[in-house]
């Protein structure tokens, strides 16, 4: 093993958010715009989550999520946690694809999602990640 690190706060492209939303039954990707919550307008990527009174909005600059659930009364916070998890998964998949890496996804018993990224023989330095000829990584 070489190193481990723990991080949070997902930075995800619009494509990634769309894919994350598609994984939640009843959720709807609303695109980029201004969206009304109870007492304010929020600008960014709007996402309507099932059971939510107001859309959650992803800030395009900070990637922070603004939601108005009135402490869970206007929307189940667990759904939002799943959205963030899926956004992390889809962002990771897109990053792996951009580098030509192979990736597999496994749902663990505790609800975590494990992604295994295979980098082939390139050792993964910048410019690497080329799949070996004649087969997948």
């Amino acid at each position, binding site marked *: *093993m*070489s*190193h*481990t*690190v*723990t*991080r*949070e*706060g*997902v*930075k*995800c492209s619009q494509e990634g958010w769309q894919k994350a939303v598609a994984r939640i039954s009843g959720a709807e990707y609303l695109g980029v715009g201004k969206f009304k919550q109870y007492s304010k307008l929020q600008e960014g990527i709007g996402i309507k989550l099932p059971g939510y009174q107001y859309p959650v909005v992803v800030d395009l600059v900070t*990637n922070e999520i603004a939601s108005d659930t009135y402490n869970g009364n206007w929307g189940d916070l*667990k759904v939002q*946690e*799943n959205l*963030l*998890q899926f*956004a*992390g*998964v889809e*962002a*990771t998949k897109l*990053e*792996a694809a951009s*580098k030509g890496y192979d990736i597999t996804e496994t749902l*663990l018993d505790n*609800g*975590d*999602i*494990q*992604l*295994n*990224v*295979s*980098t*082939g*023989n390139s*050792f*993964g*330095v*910048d410019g*690497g990640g080329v799949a070996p000829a004649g087969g997948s990584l």
Partner: protein
Amino acid sequence: MSKPDIKITIKPGGKASIEVNNVQGQNCVSLSKGFEDLFVKQVNERSLKTEYYTDTEQHLNIEET
């Protein structure tokens, strides 16, 4: 040596644990940087393993072939 790989575990809420395996020397940081950057806030310090301090001469030779 086994092929280098990265294991990323993501919890509901988006907290991610990133583990790099089978990479000698400081190249492990380069390998995972793109993935680490997807999660903007570092929760704990990087835990370096013995391979991090291993001479990368072998790695560089492989890269050049």
